């Protein structure tokens, strides 16, 4: 039997961390949404890339095969990006939805450990494929490793989906933990999941990898050593994937939203539900419009696909808000304002982080566009020295404070 709302409210507020937050909850909420969108965009490239690779390397068509090997590499790097970017939303959710996140995890503890181990195995298998096919041509070797990696990614995706989905039903937790009054401390069960929602998020990888392929074709189009017919092939495939994939995910989004449980019926008619559908549809619209431009279509489809992901991330977070608002409002979390740590973060993120990452990504962008060795301009060297200067300054302040506070 579900707990009554008052009891759920008392439980959730008791579980909240008494240390409070060092800044206002809306800031963490915003960071959580933005970084989830970035993380999941990388996840979509990772799964979509692995899917294209798995199909492509087995084809006799040389373009398919070339694209397959390229996407196997892209997918491998996307795993790394997804893991790195995934840290941020994981941090954020622990801050403002700590009662939900921690309870859901403890209730399925073995699956949480499995998530870590399975991701290590899957990513390692991806590297097995990479090392077995370093020439990136011919009949693929150890294809099972790429297939195993993809299956592993789908498994960890399902675990994460379930852990997130369990947070939406705090009224059921006690029944899951102690069914019929008998406590189950084993953590061996995943208690709740929604197949349509899971498939929706997984299949977002189809339109996203589609728009990625369109951007890929554009990027290489400025290099004279690239085969235009191959780029046209990648673009056409990408456009098709973007349109068909977005049509499928939009349909799934509508079905998912239409079948929400009774307590979420108010969400169905809200602006947020519309955002969810629009977010899913956007890649199809932009891919359709890019048709005339051909493989020099530019990066707009990829950027618009990210905007679509951001809309879905906002709507997803609002759905969680609707699900728990009868019991819990993260906006009234206690705040212990800590300007020191907030300022250090803002400086590191907005000044040092943006500048240094901007520099590194500019270098890699320009190096990729250059045939032969990329010679950086004097301005680029000044930018590099500025970034190193920022890091030296940051380190010096750290050790100054450490020395003052220690002695």
């Amino acid at each position, binding site marked *: 039997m579900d707990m009554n709302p008052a009891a759920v409210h*008392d439980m959730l507020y*008791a*579980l909240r*961390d*008494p*240390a409070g937050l*060092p*800044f206002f909850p809306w800031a963490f909420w915003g960071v959580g949404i933005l970084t989830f969108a970035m993380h999941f965009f990388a996840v979509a490239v990772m799964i979509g890339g692995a899917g294209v690779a798995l199909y492509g390397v087995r084809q006799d068509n040389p373009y398919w095969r070339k694209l397959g090997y390229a996407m196997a590499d892209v997918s491998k*790097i996307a795993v*790394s990006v997804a*893991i790195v970017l*995934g*840290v941020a939303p*994981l941090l954020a959710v*622990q*801050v403002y939805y*700590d009662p939900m996140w*921690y309870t859901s995890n*403890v209730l399925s*503890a073995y699956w*949480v*450990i499995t998530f*870590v181990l399975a*991701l*290590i195995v899957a*990513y390692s298998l991806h590297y097995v494929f990479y090392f077995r096919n370093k020439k990136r041509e011919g009949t693929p070797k150890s294809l099972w490793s790429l297939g195993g990696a993809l299956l592993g990614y789908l498994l960890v995706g399902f675990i994460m989906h379930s852990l997130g989905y369990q947070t939406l039903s705090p009224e059921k*937790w*006690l029944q899951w*933990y*102690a069914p019929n*009054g*008998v*406590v189950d*401390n*084993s953590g061996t069960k995943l208690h709740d999941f929604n197949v349509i929602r899971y498939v929706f998020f997984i299949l977002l990888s189809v339109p996203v990898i589609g728009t990625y392929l369109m951007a890929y074709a554009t990027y290489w189009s400025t290099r004279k050593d690239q085969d235009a017919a191959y780029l046209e092939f990648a673009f056409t495939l990408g456009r098709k994937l973007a349109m068909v994939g977005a049509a499928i995910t939009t349909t799934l989004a509508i079905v998912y939203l239409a079948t929400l449980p009774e307590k979420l019926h108010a969400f169905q008619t809200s602006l947020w539900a519309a955002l969810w559908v629009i977010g899913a549809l956007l890649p199809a619209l932009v891919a359709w419009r890019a048709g005339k431009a051909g493989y020099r279509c530019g990066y707009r489809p990829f950027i618009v696909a990210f905007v679509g992901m951001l809309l879905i991330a906002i709507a997803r977070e609002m759905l969680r808000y609707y699900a728990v608002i009868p019991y819990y409002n993260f906006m009234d979390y206690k705040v*212990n304002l*800590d300007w020191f*740590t907030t300022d*250090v*973060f803002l400086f*590191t*993120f907005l000044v040092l*982080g943006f500048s*240094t990452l901007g520099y*590194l990504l500019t270098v*890699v962008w320009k*190096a990729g566009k250059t045939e032969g*060795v*990329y*010679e*950086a301009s004097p301005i*680029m060297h000044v930018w590099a020295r500025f970034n*190193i200067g920022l*890091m030296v300054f940051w*380190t010096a302040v750290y050790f100054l*404070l*450490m020395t*003052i*506070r*220690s002695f």
Partner: protein
Amino acid sequence: MELISLYPTWYDPAMGSGYWIALIATIHVLFSHTSVGAAIFFAYLVNKAYREDRPELLEFVKKYGIFLLIFSYVMGSITGPGIWYSTTVGSPKGISALIHSFVWKWATEWVFFVIEVVGVYLVIYLVGKVDKRTHTYIAFIFAAASYATMMLILGILSFMMWPGSPEWFEKGGTLYSFFGQNTFAQLMIRTGFAMAVTAVVGSIIASAFKDDALKDEVLRKLAGFGLLGVSIMIGTYFWYVQTVPANALEVMHNRMPSWFAPAIIATFGLMLLYFIVALFNTRLLTPVIAGAMVVVITVLGLFPEEITRESMRKPYVAGQYVYSNQIIARDVPGMGIKAELPKVEKYGILKVHPFLPDNLRTVTAENKLAVGKQIAVVMCSNCHQVTKTEGIRPLTDYFGGETNVDRIKRYLKGTVVAGNIMYMPRIPLKEAELDALATYIAHLNGDNAKTLAAK
């Protein structure tokens, strides 16, 4: 109803949640320290390679870098969040305390981590594709970002043992919780370890080189780097032990398995020997020997060290205010945190725990055993196996096979209920709860006796 902030408890009868945390943490410590040390070593080598026009040194950077991508950036970047996940299920209040105090520190570390990951790819894959100065700058940025991640995480790790300064309890804020002697000393020890382990892992790659001259040069450089690292570790260890609280030292000296200290000392000795051999006769090193040395460091050095570090902070898991059994043990006025022990004492754990079914909230003759088991799981299982006679510190080991409930109750009252054991939480149970727990322990001891008799 008055509730306290206890989550459900995950109980793993095979290993215990503590060992899961230690296992993942040990792996992560190895990988993450290697990445930090290697980033610094790469910056040195890349700079040297371009200044002296020695492209073969870049080949080593590339080979070690690709090895590192898997060793540190596949395993390391997964086990990093993996520690969050394992502590989330094993010690949710402990990780919650750290997250809520240090969320911006972790976010700051994340910024550096992103730079570090982008940096490592660029250092490896842009060899020969960008001009020398640009590549050197990237190597410096990679090194600085990598070291910054360690500078940040160390303040959080130290807080698990001891807040940066005692003023934090009254004033709150990360300026007081983060910086302090313990953090500083630990940063130095870990800097030394990062250098030493980088040298050992790097020698797996370098010892496989076909070019003898290059092999000799790189192995000697690594050995020098490693020797410097071990020296820093040994030198700063004596500083570190002066910065930890007395009760932590007491646990370190008296409560750890007897093989830990000799194993750690032997690991230091072996590392010194390894680097000295590498300095004078590089031909003796092979990838197999280097790989074996990594295993020795992990099993005989890191694992006992991680277990010891976990144990030294007991009875607390974070900031000297969150007990290992997840109950908030003391007020922290600077953060507006109120102790939960008084509520437990006043109402009883069965009444204030949010995750107990109604049929276990009052002790009866019928449910006494089930209630006793849940009290054992909630209060003891973070550090003890509570269902079996083997595994991590089995509860039964502490009662000498006693099956008399009254005698067990008396023992519990004189020890944990009164809070008389320095490294264990105070567990102020109500009389009926104590009776249930004692009954469960007597039952366990009885089962144990039967099993022994049958054998």
